[in-house]
């Protein structure tokens, strides 16, 4: 038997625990405390019966209420979808050119388009729509197929050179490597580079201009300003889809690369494509 210590003041036995000379009285707990304890046990049994509780080898008990946090999320998502439904329907009914005039639809379309862009478009155009070599930057004011809201909408709906959609944008630049002498290619590259002030061989610029006028103006225009009808890029501005150096231009003239974009109208539906068009148009370069 250990020595029992009885507190002098209260006459109560202590538990034998001492902290810095302070002893703990061994008083009985109040009885309602015990009842509270029993109540928690009853609560726990009720919880185990009603809610998912016991882990099994694979999975767990489901509980009578059939509750799951995943179910909660699914419910919230469908509620959110239902709440969006009205606006989505409204966007589907509104012609693309009129959406931006309605502030509520505009805000909703930009948010919805931004979300759809992150899922479907960032793989090629980048997370900031900033583009990469061969994939156009959508923030700037240089548009191959037109930067008005209608033209952007058409481009997204039908895509470019995808061979699946009959209305897809289509054009093909001939491979001038088969038609021009290598010297002529170098000359025309020097001329095109000079248009945007890119350093180039000055001796080749004048003859290059002649080559350009004979071969290129039909699509790229007299002043190399391009033609959105054919997706022919403006060669006189500061923006290059492919390499903008003299050598890069020469390579593109010799054996051009052509970008392809899927037709999104059939994949995402008209309402989403409209939102995407509004979003892209809002990025800063829309016309």
């Amino acid at each position, binding site marked *: 038997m250990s020595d029992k210590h009885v507190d002098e003041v209260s006459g109560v036995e202590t538990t034998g625990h001492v902290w810095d000379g302070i002893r703990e009285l061994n008083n009985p707990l109040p009885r309602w405390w015990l009842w509270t304890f029993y109540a928690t046990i009853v609560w726990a049994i009720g919880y185990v019966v009603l809610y998912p509780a016991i882990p099994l080898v694979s999975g767990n008990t489901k509980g009578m209420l059939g509750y799951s946090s995943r179910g909660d999320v699914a419910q919230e998502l469908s509620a959110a979808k239902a709440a969006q439904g009205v606006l989505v329907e409204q966007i589907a009914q509104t012609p693309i050119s009129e959406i931006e005039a309605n502030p509520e639809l505009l*805000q909703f379309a930009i948010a919805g388009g931004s979300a759809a862009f992150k899922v479907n478009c960032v793989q090629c155009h980048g997370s900031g*729509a*900033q583009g990469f070599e061969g994939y156009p930057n959508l923030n700037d*004011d240089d548009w191959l197929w037109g930067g008005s809201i209608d033209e952007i909408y058409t481009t997204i709906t039908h895509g470019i050179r995808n061979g699946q959609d009959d209305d897809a944008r289509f054009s093909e630049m001939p491979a001038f490597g088969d038609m021009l002498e290598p010297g002529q290619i170098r000359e025309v590259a020097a001329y095109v580079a000079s248009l945007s002030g890119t350093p180039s061989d000055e001796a080749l610029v004048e003859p290059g201009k002649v080559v350009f006028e004979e071969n290129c103006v039909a699509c790229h225009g007299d002043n190399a300003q391009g033609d959105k009808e054919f997706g022919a890029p403006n060669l006189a501005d*500061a923006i290059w889809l492919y390499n903008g150096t003299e050598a890069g231009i020469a390579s593109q003239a010799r054996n051009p690369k052509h970008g392809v974009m899927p037709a999104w109208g059939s994949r995402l539906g008209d309402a989403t494509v409209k939102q995407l068009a509004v979003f892209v148009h*809002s990025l*800063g*370069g829309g016309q």
Partner: protein
Amino acid sequence: MNTHTRQDDQAPEEIERLDADPVNAAWKRKPLYEARKKIFPKRASGRYRQFKWLVMIITLGIYYITPWLRWDRGPFAPDQAVLVDFPNRRFYFFFIEIWPQEFIFVAGLLVMAGFGLFLVTSAVGRAWCGYTCPQTVWVDLFLVVERAIEGDRNARMKLESAPWTGSKFAKRVSKHAIWLLIGVATGGAWIFYFADAPSLLGDFLTGRAPAVAYITVGILTATTYVFGGLMREQVCTYMCPWPRIQAAMLDESSLVVTYNDWRGEPRGKHAKKAAADGLALGDCVDCNACVAVCPMGIDIRDGQQLECITCALCIDACDGVMDKLGRDRGLIAYATLADYQQNMAIATGNGTHAIDPARVRDADGHYHDKVKHFDWRVIFRPRTMLYLLIWSVVGFALLIALLSRDRLELNVLHDRNPQYVLQSNGDIQNGFTVKLLNMIPEPRVIFLSIEGLPGATMTAPGINQPPSRSLAIEVEPDRLREIKLHVTQPKEYISGAVTKFRLVADDKASNEHDAYVANFNAPERK
């Protein structure tokens, strides 16, 4: 094996009785759990009881009436004086409106509440517990009901032990019914702080209020009924942490409810008989009035205790008895430990003798000069002054912050990707997300302009204005408006990879403005 067969009831004398007890003998067993001892507080009357009635009326009044006060804020904001508007994330307090990012004001108020509690406790002990704590106030209210139906202490004790008759049943049912109604009213008042009170009351009574309103009222009804009616002192003693913290807050100069045994002891009912026996008795006549009125059921004469909430009702009870006996009041009184100890030293001859009333009083009943009495100046000492100082500094800082806070705010976030956009003519464009906060309940036109960044202009989708250095943007009352901003600087002005400039938001009507120093990014010069 015992093969002995018992033949005689009488044990042979030669067999010794051993000194052995079973370990679980019935008389040794202690209960593991203690049954609650029921308390029947007697009604007290006196100045502290009067003061407590007053505090009760004021605190309950504030609680029940506040949500119904109106405050006109114009057509674009609610007219409820005090409203916590969770759906719109706004808090209204009379002329003050707080947005979530201004929660620092609430934090500051909590700091003030903390130091206020320190100040009050170090000066006058657990005055919070004794007078203003909701638990105390509601228990008082529940006791009023109990007394009105079942009578005072003796009647209630009698009823408790009486058999279950129709009358007892009727009394108990009506008491609990009224308690529950008070509980409903308590929970009911709470929800009105969170929505427009008149319309919520209408919805609540017609069953159209949101489920959370009914659940909240239900929970608060249950807690009010259980804590105020059933558990009472158990909440203070076992559930509340404050009694355990008080020891750190009190010092020898704090006023606490004290039994002055230096003048009360030795206690006894029969002073004359004792005097005849040559024994001088103190002022305490051992009438137990102080114990009978105590809502915690303790005896203050045992000294300062964890259970004591310093409600001072024992002072009232004892003062009443002293008045009847024609003796000085204050046998039980607010006193400091320092005074008490000095007086005790006098009464006991520095602890060498038992308490002798003759040491503190002369034959005429006058106290000796050295006996210390209550002095209000004890409240003003460095510790309490420090608490008061901190409390005032925090309060003053909050007030200044409140009076000088902006009601127009501008937040600017530069696009991360792309950091800049090259335009076809060589100009550079930067994208920004701009948030304009109109924190007053009036619609405003905010002028957003560029300062610095020569030649630059800006546009914003949704704001149909031509590119310029200043855009007029309408912001709804009490709302935030987020816009996308495209700032373009012509190539001939571009001076480096990063150029700092200012975006300024101006309300020309009220002359309020806010500014943000932003970066304009451009490609590195090669």
